[in-house]
């Protein structure tokens, strides 16, 4: 397990180094994801224990956004200055983005191979 956690962190570090050295407009971890993905393609599969480590982290992905989300308490002043435009803009834009992306992908996608209907909540 520790072996694969080390691999994850190494991919992240490699991503950070490349992004910094080449001044790429990307966060290091996103490039790290691409590096690990390339590694999996070369390897031709996901080692079992890597799968377990990754699933363990991703099951709790929501938790990892809590500290950053709590940062909202720093910006009550900025937010209240433009409260109405910000609130309306975020609601309209979020609904529009979901609808446009889902509609286009759904129209262009082949039917689902497993035939199971997607519907959550």
């Amino acid at each position, binding site marked *: 397990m520790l072996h694969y956690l080390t691999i994850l962190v190494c991919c992240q570090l490699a991503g950070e180094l490349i992004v910094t050295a080449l001044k790429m407009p990307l966060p290091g971890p996103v490039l790290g994801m691409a590096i690990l993905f390339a590694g999996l393609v070369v390897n031709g599969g996901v080692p079992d224990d890597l799968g377990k480590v990754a699933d363990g982290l991703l099951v709790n992905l929501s938790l990892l956004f*809590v500290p*950053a989300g709590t940062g909202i*308490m720093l910006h009550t002043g900025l937010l209240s200055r433009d409260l109405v435009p*910000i609130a309306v803009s975020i*609601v309209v834009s979020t609904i529009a983005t979901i609808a446009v992306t*889902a509609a286009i992908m759904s129209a262009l996608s082949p039917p689902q191979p497993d035939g199971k209907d997607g519907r959550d909540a």
Partner: protein
Amino acid sequence: MRDLRDVWVYLSANPLLHLTLTLIAYRIGLAIYQRGGLNPMLNPVMIAVILLVSVLTMTGTSYQTYFEGAQFVHFLLGPATVALAVPLYRQLDAVKRSAAAVLASIAAGAATASITAVGVAYALGASRDTLVSLAPKSVTAPVAMGISEQLGGLPSLTAVLVMMTGILGAMLGPVIMNLMGIKNWAARGLAMGTTSHGIGTARAMQVNATAGAFAGLAMGINALATALLLPLVWRLVFGK
């Protein structure tokens, strides 16, 4: 009483307290979310943030003090982002089959996100700082902050708008797509990742593995595309 105050002084200066509070707040949020049958309106991140902001405000604790403990959780975002390669690889065949559709959908979604956000706020008279900070709001936080800075916005305001968009998309996305009758898991995941980056991806992953993989993919491509194109488009439209 004096002993109790000593205990508080000791605890509040110790990162363990705020690390523990973060975990407990999330456990409460998660329990409510699960008790509610994963109802997207009971988003666990939103519940945890409301609990934490209330507790920190009531105890007069600064965000900086809080973050000294919470940073240990925050740090894991990096390795978790790298780990998204695993579900993506598991869906490699599905992604290959629909590569053109994936790129077209994300491009349309990314353009919609920026144009509608800036357009609506502009029509309602928002300040220039707000407009610039809103433009990259559907992009994962570290990239969005970089774009905002490059365009002369306020990166810290962008971070907050990104979190708000993430939580709102995770809450409204499933409801909107059910109303639209979108049943394809790839399409549902892609929309969640394009709109609501990691928070949408987390929600998609809780519901379906295919949706989760396409959401992670969408988050990455949206970040890349917006980082490359938004600054160019912004200069064309606004001159500077």
